[in-house]
């Protein structure tokens, strides 16, 4: 079965190598790597290295980040339908982005502009609130509290967002927020990618310790505890890692739905339930999946682009119907 993970790795490699070669405009590969022309004059090279490459890398990181969070949330909440959105992350991220877009705030920190920063803060902030709520009730039902708390916080944040829109009566702010919500991987530079690697890297360090304990925790808190797992510590670590990973992904590409649900499911159908396979395979498949979706998004309706969130939704909707009718 480890061979399957290697298989996913190979798939990701192939997809990531081929994706920058395709696009809505045609470029000449020979010209791309032609060193004799200065970069500033080389359109083909600029398209390849400024327009496409960062996009593929961003899609890979966002896809992996969302898929990993999805796996972790599904194990934590013991619910195969859970996703990074379940606990109100999207609502928090959207509120953050909306405030930044409406206020037209204008500053950058280490080359990262205010919208991704606000998005990250919103995503992590909302998860922190839900997390704090679940820690207030100390035993046994903490995942129930997580779930209910997440729904409540999501509703609250959505309402807050609408209220702010109503107060400011700013139609352009609303419009920009709606556009942002469709997701976009067109980062155009490496600065936001590098910035997102900080929380994402920390998240991955956390994820690396989790696979086996996630198997056990998915049996139930007491069942895991009885087998020797420090459940409270595991849940905290899992939640923090998943928050950082989701926050990084959403601040880089916007709230792209369905990746966090679809990818873990498909991966489990192929490799089984063992998280020691599911976790790495999901990261790899998530990356390939989103790179693929973005490729479709930027080529299918050429010369205009379809927002990548629309593509994942088009795949996600029927996928869910299929899940529903699969003989449950």
């Amino acid at each position, binding site marked *: 079965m480890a061979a399957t993970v290697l298989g996913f790795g190979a798939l990701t490699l192939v997809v990531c190598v081929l994706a920058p070669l395709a696009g809505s405009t045609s470029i000449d590969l020979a010209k791309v790597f032609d060193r004799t022309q200065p970069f500033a004059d080389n359109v083909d090279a600029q398209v390849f290295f400024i327009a496409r490459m960062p996009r593929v890398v961003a899609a890979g990181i966002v896809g992996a980040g969302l898929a990993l969070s999805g796996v972790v949330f599904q194990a934590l909440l013991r619910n195969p339908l859970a996703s990074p959105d379940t606990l109100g992350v999207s609502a928090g991220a959207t509120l953050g982005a909306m405030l930044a877009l409406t206020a037209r705030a204008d500053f950058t920190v280490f080359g990262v502009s205010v919208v991704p920063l606000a998005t990250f803060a919103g995503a992590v902030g909302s998860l922190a609130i839900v997390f704090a709520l679940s820690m207030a009730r100390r035993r046994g039902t903490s995942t129930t509290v997580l779930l209910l708390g997440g729904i409540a916080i999501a509703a609250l944040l959505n309402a807050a967002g609408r209220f702010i829109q109503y107060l400011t*009566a700013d139609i352009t702010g609303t419009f920009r927020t709606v556009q942002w919500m469709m997701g976009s991987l067109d980062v155009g530079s490496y600065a936001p990618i590098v910035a997102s690697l900080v929380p994402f890297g920390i998240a991955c360090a956390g994820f690396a310790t989790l696979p086996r304990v996630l198997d056990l925790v998915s049996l139930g808190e007491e069942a895991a505890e009885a087998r020797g797992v420090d459940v409270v510590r595991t849940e905290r670590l899992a939640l923090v890692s998943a928050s950082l990973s989701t926050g990084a992904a959403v601040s880089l590409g916007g709230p792209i739905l369905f990746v966090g649900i679809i990818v873990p499911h498909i991966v489990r159908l192929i490799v089984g339930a063992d998280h020691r396979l599911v976790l790495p395979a999901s990261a790899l498949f998530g990356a390939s999946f989103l790179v693929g979706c973005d490729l479709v998004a930027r080529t299918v309706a050429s010369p205009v682009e379809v927002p990548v969130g629309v593509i994942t939704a088009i795949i996600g909707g029927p996928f869910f119907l299929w899940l529903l009718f699969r003989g449950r």
Partner: protein
Amino acid sequence: MAVIQRQIGLRAKGSGLLVALALALGVQPSALAQARRVVSIIPATTEMLFAMGAGDRVIAIGTYDHYPPEAQKLPKVGALIDPNVEQILQMRPDLVVIYGTQTELKQRLERARIPYYSYVHKGLADITETMRSLGARVGAADAGNALASRVERQLADIREHVSKAPHPKTLIVFERERRTLRNIYASGGEGFLHDMLVAAGGVDAMADVRRQSVTMSTEMVLDRAPDVIIELRYAKDDIDDTDTTVWNRLASIPAVRNRRVIVLTGEEFVVPGPRVGEATRRLAAALHPELRW
């Protein structure tokens, strides 16, 4: 006569005999209309009404109607998505100028027997057409026609002035995320921004895209390689933002190489109203600095 008037919801001035005669001659009832209490919730039409001297008939304007200054003292009753219907009805207008898409508002006005003028936002030619028909509708037909002719002359002069000059491939960006090149909205090959660009002597880089607005990806911008990029700034809070250094990343674009990323500020660029001639002139001057303006 009174029956006909009520049915068409008019308050016609002049004798009933005149109306009967007009109807017999096939003249449209609206041509006889005189509106004295006009509500306009659209920036373009508000500007038009004031520019044609009918500002004294306007009793309320829209939330985003920032021009002309003499209109600002009037009450603001909402706009496209949030028209304050109660307030509008309370003011007992005899004409409300609304967007063609505001179906709910239309229904409310019909129920209240208040006439409305339905405005559609399209190309440059529609602007002058609207000036004429709106002028006629409020009973200021001559003023409306004069205004339209003036604008048409302005545009014709500009077209003539730039006709011999080279026409640069131009991208008009009217929206993007601050400090980055994300979520760039450019004018597509349709709509009044496109028409303005053509009148101003530019070739539209996005002419083949049959839409009023296009979301530009980095790849698209690089591929289109415009000679000039015009950035429009019109919102209150970013009117002072003239920073275009973010574009330097895309060094292969002629507009960047030749330092022809130009910021044009002012609401007249996004309000398809009487100032469109002035806006087109400023656009043309930006595109053709070599000419005398």
